[in-house]
């Protein structure tokens, strides 16, 4: 999908107008952020906004997230284990300390 973010009042207004006029090409809209269909038409609308508002419009391309393909099992298991912890107030670092769970630092240093 195409992630479109408005950074000015004018750009936000145009984004809202575009979303209203082309509901079928808009996957989601939150305030000044919208997700457009990944079609040429979605790109056309995003580029129109960029043309009109220049750098006040940010366009990024998102891709579907498959945690079973993109993420190692250790990280998935760590998330599951941490969310089922018995003491809610324990920070993850402490929770992972002395276990096989990956550390915050090691995860930060490993791009997907």
């Amino acid at each position, binding site marked *: 999908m195409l992630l479109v973010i408005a950074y*000015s*009042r004018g750009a936000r207004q145009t984004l809202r107008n575009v979303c209203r006029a082309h509901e079928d090409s808009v996957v989601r809209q939150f305030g000044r952020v919208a997700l457009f269909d990944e079609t040429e038409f979605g790109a056309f609308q995003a580029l129109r906004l960029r043309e009109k508002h*220049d*750098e006040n419009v940010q366009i990024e391309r998102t891709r579907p997230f498959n945690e079973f393909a993109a993420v190692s099992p250790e990280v998935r298991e760590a998330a599951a284990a941490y969310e089922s912890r018995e003491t809610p107030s324990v920070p993850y670092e402490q929770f992972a300390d002395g276990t096989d769970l990956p550390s915050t630092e090691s995860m930060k240093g490993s791009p997907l």
Partner: protein
Amino acid sequence: MICRIGDVVRRGRVVSVKQDVDPTAVAAAVRADDTDPDAPVAVTAPSQTTVHEQVGCIHPGMGLRTRTALARAARTRGLTTPYDDQLQETRESLAALDMEDESTASYRRELAETTADIERLQEEVAAARGRLQARREQGLDTTAAAEELEDAIRRLSEAETSASAIRQQLDRTRAAARGRRDTRDRRLRLEDRVANLERRARAHLVDHLHEAFATTVPEVPVGEADTPPDGNAFETDAVTAALAIARLAVLSAPVVLDCDRFDSPVRAYEWLDAPVIYL
């Protein structure tokens, strides 16, 4: 004021214009800072306040944002609001924001082009490798084919090097763009805040003048063809509302009048208590 239309020059607080001129052109001349000696209409008069934009030119067919005009009229009477200090502070913070632009588009384009080159060159390398292999298997001379392969590999490696340089440059500009977006975020928040404060200030000012406006509207002289206003003062016609607001405002710049509401230009001047250019 001094009002010149064509070759005719008139002076005084009340100027009556006999020629057929566009009222908006006269109003524009009132608002202009410099008088152009060659312009068909020129007016030298005290400078206008913002309310002049709304009620400085009153003619049938005019539009009027009544609440905005009324709020601005309130300002000419020296009215302030509890939001003014905050408004000024927020406007100052907004003006102090340093916004600079550097587009990342050129890098994106270069990277896309180089990536396409790389794909094409990879195919060339594969083809050259295939040709060399074939000649070798057939026991033919491989000198030329080996040179071709070497050449293709060299061009591919060059393209990869430049792609990597462009990618790094793009990463750097992207990081800088992220920083600038933080500034844009701040600006948007400040702009929203200004708009919000302006709305509240306007409501405050309108509240203050609401009653005076409601009593003035029925006092506005009506022309023969006009229906006298009744009911909600905010729903009255634009000319009537504009006249009422012009009367409530303290105006030093002349009001251009092109409406059939007063017996004489002097009567209009007296009623509005403002200099008048009467068309």
